[in-house]
């Protein structure tokens, strides 16, 4: 199966006065057409920088220093900015946590959507407006023909995110990168947005990369989950399997940290310490200083171990091993 998106050995570094911040440091990721992939990680794990890198949206002092990003076989690292601009919004769309990153506050939704359509297609303003209204209706905005005349501040947070999603879907992109799009929303609103996303992805056949800190949301949505720590993927596999039997001690720690459920009231098994500074990562496994089962071997670079078909962990001593077949 050929991949829609194929990232190999991606390194995005930020040269700061304090030193080199290795935000993404050796990322490998494949996304097939129509697939839903979840990327889970805490702040500073590099999950957002990774998705920004795909779109060429990393601002200086950030720079892709190594690796390749192929979209339908076409290399995006070092590609012509004009080419990237044609891809962005048309073939690859992005949804941000804060919809105001997509929307300008000073223009009506209508102006912004019509412009977004006509940036990529030669259509009349009238035809573009009709399509914009259709797009708003598709994401569940009531009375779209009237609401399109509104400014972003006249929408609630959930409605604004729907507008951002409608814009992302205008050109039926093959790949949607969603960076924490429901994090700022209430649970019932989040449920509605997740419903719309599920439906739209199923209808259009777009591939979706859902970046989030929330393991539960990712599990409910994704076919495959990638857990990121300190700029690289430490575990990857089918979402349900990873949650049921995590192989990497960090994934185990994340799951144990979640409050609620059967053990409510008991002490949580916290991960000691805090996320490492990306300025001076320890050699070897970056999780070793916080790992409950760290061994001397962890001072060397951990290998990528195959746990089961389609499941890998970057660990010297994964918690589960491939069952003898």
């Amino acid at each position, binding site marked *: 199966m050929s991949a829609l998106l194929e990232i190999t050995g991606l390194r995005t570094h930020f040269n700061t006065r304090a030193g080199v911040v290795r935000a993404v440091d050796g990322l490998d990721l494949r996304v097939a057409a129509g697939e839903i992939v979840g990327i889970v990680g*805490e*702040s500073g794990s590099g999950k957002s920088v990774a998705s920004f890198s795909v779109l060429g949206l990393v601002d200086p002092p950030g720079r892709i220093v190594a690796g390749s990003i192929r979209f339908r076989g076409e290399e995006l690292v070092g590609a012509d900015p004009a080419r990237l601009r044609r891809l962005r919004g048309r073939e690859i769309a992005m949804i941000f946590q804060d919809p105001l990153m997509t929307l300008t506050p000073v223009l009506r939704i209508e102006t912004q959507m019509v412009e977004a359509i006509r940036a990529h297609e030669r259509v009349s303003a009238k035809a573009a407006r009709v399509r914009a209204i259709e797009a708003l209706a598709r994401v*569940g905005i*009531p009375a779209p023909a009237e609401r399109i005349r509104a400014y972003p501040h006249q929408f*609630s*947070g*959930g409605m604004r995110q729907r507008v951002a999603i409608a814009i992302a879907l205008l050109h039926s992109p093959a790949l949607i990168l969603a960076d924490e799009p429901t994090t700022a929303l*209430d*649970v*019932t*609103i*989040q*449920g*509605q947005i*997740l*419903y*719309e996303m*599920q439906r739209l992805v199923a209808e259009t056949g777009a591939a979706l990369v859902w970046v989030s*800190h*929330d*393991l*539960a*949301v990712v*599990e*409910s*949505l*994704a076919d495959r989950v990638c857990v990121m720590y300190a700029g690289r993927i430490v575990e990857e596999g089918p*979402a*349900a399997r990873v*949650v*049921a039997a995590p192989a990497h001690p960090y994934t185990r*720690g*994340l*799951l*144990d*940290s*979640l*409050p*609620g*459920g059967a*053990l*409510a*009231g*008991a*002490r*949580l*098994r*916290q*991960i000691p310490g*805090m*996320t490492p500074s990306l300025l001076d990562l320890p050699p070897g496994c970056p999780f070793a200083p916080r790992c409950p089962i760290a061994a001397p071997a962890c001072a060397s670079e951990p290998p990528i171990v195959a746990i089961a078909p389609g499941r890998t962990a970057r660990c010297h001593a994964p918690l589960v091993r491939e069952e003898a077949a």
Partner: protein
Amino acid sequence: MRGLATAPVPAPQAAAAPPHLEVRGVTKHFVRRPDIVERVAIALGLVEPPPVLRAVDGVSFAVARGEALGLVGESGCGKSTLGRILAGVHAKTGGDFLFEGVEEAGWDAARANRARLEVQMIFQDPMSSLNPRKRIGAAIGEAPVAHGLVSRRERDDLVAGLMREVGLDPSYVRRFPHQFSGGQRQRIGIARALAVSPAALVCDEAVAALDVSIQAQILNLFMDLRERRGLTYLFISHDLGVVEHLTDRVAIMYLGRIVEIGPTREIFARPAHPYTSALLAEAPRVGQGRRVYAPLTGEIPSPLAPPPGCAFHTRCPRAFARCREEAPALKDVAPGRAAACHLDDRA
């Protein structure tokens, strides 16, 4: 493993002692103050006066000493405003606040002082309550000196002790807030609240901004403090997992009112109010696998113009005629449990 939620908690009505904190029919209204031109126009009847936002609209509940009550709801439901009224940050518009069973009107100077000092608040973003130019030792030690709880000389020992208690290295006492991570800053916020020896903590989304692994550390700290100091908690959160983990009882709020209140475990197992059911159903949980989300139902009302009748009827899958006309009262549905829903009358 010691279960904190299973610790014996005296039921408010059964215990001889009055509840630690209690509110009766508390309301808080916010009105935008019209400017002079608008006031003239209103006086002449040319424009309508600005609408009243009923952030908290007649809320009653009691918290026993040492009990942890969760306050759950979505943005704009009034849970933070209610917490601030209890912590003395906001003045209430109406209703009663009882401290140790005594109404505010009956407080003498000593009790008024205690009601203020003994209920402390912890905010979501500790950075917004810390002066960035003040060393954290000074920030933690300021209030107890100002209130005459310790002398200036004893202050350093108190600060060092508090820092150890919340898991901060006392050698950091001369650092500034920006030199700490988010989790450490929240520990500073907690140490600062503990400095005046409170009996109750109002935690307003205190772990919402933290990463999962750091959040677990702070939740453990809250549980340790409760055990060590016998604190009463009002835990305000939109995160159902956090509330389930930490609280004995929970109150669910919707548009300024409590729609359901009762023991946390029972409500999570068998919600009585349709809104509680919806909240629990929508919140994804780890281990549930893939799921199909349900479509949009109903319109989310504005707190400026709440719908007539039950505020939830616009989104309620089981609403009937009466829900659109008459607001349901909060009434007992089981021992220690109450819900505000007309469906309970039909059964």
